[in-house]
């Protein structure tokens, strides 16, 4: 059902955890539908210096969260905003059709975290 890559990211997820004093945090999904993804960013200048995640959800939810953190580390915010849910799924070698909609939200969580970062910066100014 899942590709080897999905199973690899599910079994050995990259960047699990929280960032203390993260300057951008994004959360999508809800417990009712069985998926919650939270992404923590440490942004310095315009670059994502560190990123971590916490996810409640199925194998695809965990794997996409892990994958997106790997994809954005060291990228600029503009580059990160260009990553789509579909690109994350593709990087994992694809997801089962049923999972494309319900559990493929990691890029949304990332974008929410970037939005949160921008909002926090504006408040500071």
């Amino acid at each position, binding site marked *: 059902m899942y590709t080897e890559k999905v199973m690899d990211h599910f079994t050995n997820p990259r960047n699990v955890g929280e960032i203390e004093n993260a300057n951008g945090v994004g*959360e999508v999904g809800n*417990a009712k*539908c*069985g998926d*919650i993804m939270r992404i923590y960013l440490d942004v310095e200048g315009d670059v994502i210096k560190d990123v971590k995640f916490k996810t*409640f959800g*199925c*194998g695809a*939810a965990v794997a996409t969260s892990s994958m997106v953190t790997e994809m954005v580390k060291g990228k600029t915010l503009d580059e990160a905003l260009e990553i789509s849910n579909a690109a994350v799924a593709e990087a994992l070698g694809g997801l089962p059709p049923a999972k494309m909609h319900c559990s493929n939200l990691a890029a949304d969580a990332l974008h929410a975290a970037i939005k949160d970062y921008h909002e926090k910066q504006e408040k500071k100014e």
Partner: protein
Amino acid sequence: MRRVYLDHSATTPVDPEVAALMMTYYTEKYGNPSSVHSFGREAKQALEEARRQVAELIGAEPSEVTFTSGGTEADNLAILGTAEALSKKGKHIITTAVEHHAVLETCEYLEKNGFDLTIVPVDEEGIVSVESVKKAIRPDTILITMMHANNEVGAIQPVAEIGKLAKEHGIVFHVDAVQSLGKIPIDVKTMAIDLLTISSHKIYGPKGVGALYIRKGVRVAPRIYGGGQEKKRRSGTENTPGIIGFGKACELAGQRMAEDAQRLSKLRDKLMNGIIEKIDYVKINGPLGDKRLPNNVNVSIQFVEGESLLLSLDMLGIAASSGSACTSGSLDPSHVLLAMGLVHEIAHGSLRFTLGHQNTEEDIDYVLEQLPKIVDRLRMMSPLYDQAVHAKQAQ
């Protein structure tokens, strides 16, 4: 790697004795039971012996057993066949909120086609009250269709009492006994059952075979027309090897039932108690003790999701199932758990273990050793677990 199969409510392995007997009817005694020659006659004889074996396990007469392609077809035959036979008498059907899809979907099909459907609720243990069925009965009720024991949480329903009620009101009573057959005693006479669905592959028989018990005198319109096999109730050349395997499986189940029930209920309780002891934030779903099938364990593990649990268990060779949305094939978790009043997030984290013949104490020990580690790992990743732990510390 150690492999532990704990999904016997999904399907069971075929007993070697059953498989060996079936093989004879594939390669040597392969005649068509409808044929006049000796090949046909030996197949026919074995078919009738199987019918006797099946009937004996449920307290029926052999002539009351109609073989089908499985439980789903038997449910369809019972419900659609009764609806067609009795549509002039009435159009109201009663079922329950925790039925298998083979019953629920069939009832909903009838509802879309001019029948009235009442779906009776269950309590928090998944058990239907006799009183609520009684209240649902109307003068035009023609059928009560419900399960004997629930496939997800193992809840055993008060079928004998509801059977009595149906009889008093002249309503046809159909029971889906796919999960209870061979696990707890069934007697169609004392339980006042008119139609009973059973399936072979849940009791160490082959897949693709089931039966509908039809009490003598009860009218059921056929769903499949053709050569008139099975007393015109189900046309099509009989699946003789499968049916003969089913017969043998019924005979073995009858011999083993009491001992199995005693042994498996001990293992069941060991697994349930072990999970409660070793993992915090868990909830047992379904009733305890005698109201539960001897081989069923169903727990919700909070803050983690069912499919993640299944994948992690599978990597360690442990086969289980879950009622999470990801495994139900829809956006909602199990309709059974929701009907019992579980909130979505608790239902998403449900895990079902169903034990069988081959399971040993060591199998249970292995699960109890591995499961807490899996839960720890997934909770480490879960934002919900943090929140719960923080909330508890704040108190």
